[in-house]
């Protein structure tokens, strides 16, 4: 094995992406937990922790710029580097979605108890997609990436069902308009989280095979 430092750098890049993925995952879990239990303190904590994710994104971008400028990665290494750049952006966007969910939680009006169950199902699916897509990234598992991306259809179906449910809720009870319209945004954010997980799966497939696919 030659170019030891270079290969250590590639390993470090991969490790940073996995850490960022874990932190984004926790942020999404906590944002939904705060929404479900109306925990304003936890929601505030999620908003604050977003900086950590942004720092990872910046750190990874700098790391990649240096690798390209100094090491000229090619072939599988190049696919890893360009994919990490995209995955970092997807993770950053997913975290922004979690922050948006948390920010809204602080404006939910009293008197409304719990969000519709479908929202929690969407959240669980999104969290699992993120977890599996990061596992596929770590192990370069093309099959797992494809299987994970297929889960997005379930989130999309739940999105349309829940959207209908929330609109109905508003038309039947005007006092629900504030909270339900906020929840309409929440389901959009959760649907986007699924899309970003799909993008990560696409990056994994490109890394593994060089094939560019559209799984969304």
């Amino acid at each position, binding site marked *: *094995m*030659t*170019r030891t430092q*270079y290969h250590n750098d590639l390993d470090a890049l991969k490790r940073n992406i996995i850490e960022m993925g874990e932190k984004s995952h926790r942020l999404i879990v906590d944002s939904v937990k705060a929404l479900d239990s109306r925990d304003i303190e936890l929601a505030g904590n999620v908003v604050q922790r977003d900086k950590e994710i942004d720092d990872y994104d910046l750190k990874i971008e700098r790391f990649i710029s240096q690798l390209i400028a100094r090491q000229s*990665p*090619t*072939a*599988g*290494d*190049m696919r890893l580097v360009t994919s990490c750049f995209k995955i970092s952006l997807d993770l950053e966007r997913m975290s922004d979605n979690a922050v948006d969910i948390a920010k809204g939680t602080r404006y939910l009006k009293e008197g409304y108890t719990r969000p519709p169950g479908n929202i929690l199902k969407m959240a669980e699916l999104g969290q699992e997609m993120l977890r599996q897509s990061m596992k596929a990234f770590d192990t370069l598992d093309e099959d797992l990436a494809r299987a994970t991306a297929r889960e997005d259809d379930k989130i999309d179906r739940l999105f349309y069902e829940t959207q209908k449910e929330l609109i109905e809720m508003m038309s039947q009870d005007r006092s629900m308009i504030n909270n339900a319209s906020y929840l309409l945004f929440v389901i959009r954010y959760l649907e986007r989280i699924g899309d970003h997980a799909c993008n990560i799966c696409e990056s994994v497939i490109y890394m593994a095979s060089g094939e560019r696919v559209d799984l969304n």
Partner: protein
Amino acid sequence: MSDDFTNGTEIEVRGLNLWYGTNHALHDISIDIPKNSVTAFIGPSGCGKSTFLRCLNRMNDLIPGCRIEGKVNISGQDIYNKDVDVVDLRKKVGMVFQKPNPFPMSIHDNVAYGPRIHGAAKKEVGGIVEYALRSGALWDEVSGRLSTSALDLSGGQQQRLCIARTLAVKPEVILFDEPCSSLDPISTSKIEDLILELKKQYTIVIVTHNMQQAARISDHTAFFLLGDLIEFGRTEQIFESPQKKETEDYITGRFG
């Protein structure tokens, strides 16, 4: 770099084997090198890439104990046919070496040497020299001192002079054997720009140890290892998604 090459094949090699004495140095090489494009040969030292390059204008004929089997057709002509005049072949298939090797004579005479021995008329020689030096991207730097010694030029200028010398006999193919390995980065860039310009008129084959150079300037890349042609494909494919593990390992620096 992503031109769509529909130009056809200039060099067609089939089942080429080469032995240095008992050492079987090239194993059953078959490759189609497209016309008017740059093809790079890469691989670790001793992989056979320079040996193979030298097969393309029969430079290995000069090595005692060297035996070659197989076919090499260049623009339809079997170059190992016994009727082939090797001097004519090397006019058609020019070569530029690792170290610039100008003759110890003036800049003008270096370039005029080839056309003169191939019988160019005296009155034509001046025009040929200017054409070759312009094509070699050297004219502007030397036009005022053509009668001075070529040995006074810088390394990069000497290499461009050697390219001009090759162009002066109007070849079809130019073989470059690590043409930039003794040059600084600026001279290297000038040679690379020149190669990209020359491919419009000539078919270029280049052996290089500098993988980034192969990635920058070639349209097709061939990877050699231990006398085998492991993979040959479009350069963007070789450097983005090589099909063979050996190619991947070599170009990402995992061995070699």
